């Protein structure tokens, strides 16, 4: 099966493949790549419209998954905690 024509083919260029680019996106967004690797990815994005859209979507996912709000404690949390502590204390007393 041939590759998507618009994207650089790794066997015909020094650029990383689309799969390599996809697998490096967290490192790219967290800026932990070497300058050389970051430039290779950016050259790939300039030549590959699919990976450029993929990057945009991945960036959205990266940020949203970091912003899911935490849950509120149940209103009867004191009861939940109190019961746990009572069970534990009863076991301690049984051991004495």
């Amino acid at each position, binding site marked *: *099966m*041939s*590759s*998507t024509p618009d*994207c650089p*083919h*790794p*066997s015909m260029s020094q650029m990383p*493949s*689309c*799969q*390599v680019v*996809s*697998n490096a*996106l*967290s*490192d790219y967004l967290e800026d932990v790549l070497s300058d050389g690797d970051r430039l290779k990815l950016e050259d790939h994005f300039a030549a590959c419209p*699919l*990976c450029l*859209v*993929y990057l*945009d*979507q*991945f960036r*959205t*996912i*990266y940020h*949203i*998954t*970091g*912003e*899911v*709000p*935490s*849950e*509120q*404690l*149940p209103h*009867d*949390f004191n009861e*939940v*905690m109190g*019961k*746990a*502590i009572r*069970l*534990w*204390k009863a*076991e*301690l007393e049984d051991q004495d």
Partner: protein
Amino acid sequence: MRVSHPKDLDVAQRISAGDEGAAEDLFRNLSGEMFGFVRKMLGGDPALAEDVLQEAMVGILRSMNKFDGRVRLRSWMYRILRNKIVDAQRKRGREPVFSVGDPEGDRYDAHGSWQKGVTIQPWNENAEVLDVVRRCMELLPHNQREALHLLAVQGIPAQEVATILEMNYNNLRQTLHRGRQSVRRCADQALGNLPEEGQA
């Protein structure tokens, strides 16, 4: 033995000696995030989450005399909580699914380029991406979901998440990345850009 967290060890020793006040303080500080984690991992069932949290609290108190201060007390508590969550899932007939593969692996050719016919369209700016992403997070394999929730939802530093999950830092980074890729693909399907699984 090297004690890396002497304050945590002191709290644990007070609780082990039967100090109810120390136990209450500990749970009041951490139960909000722990409850949130349980709910996310169990699909938002609040009654079940309360039961699992309570069971985990009892388990934590029972085992407190085994805490040795080598890891943070919070990390040690989360390990117990994780086990209770898996137990609860199994009781409901849901064996946790673990995945390490590339979620997009079937869409590349032999050279790692997108296969001919693959399309990746920008998402509609008006689409309910946030809701879709939340739903997609609930569908993630167990290992990716707990890693993403611990890091992103609970705000625990990555090194500590690795300690909780008992994996090395590089494996955690890989698991997080796979989780984000899985969420992106799921969101793309939900937003109409990809055929549903099995129809490709």
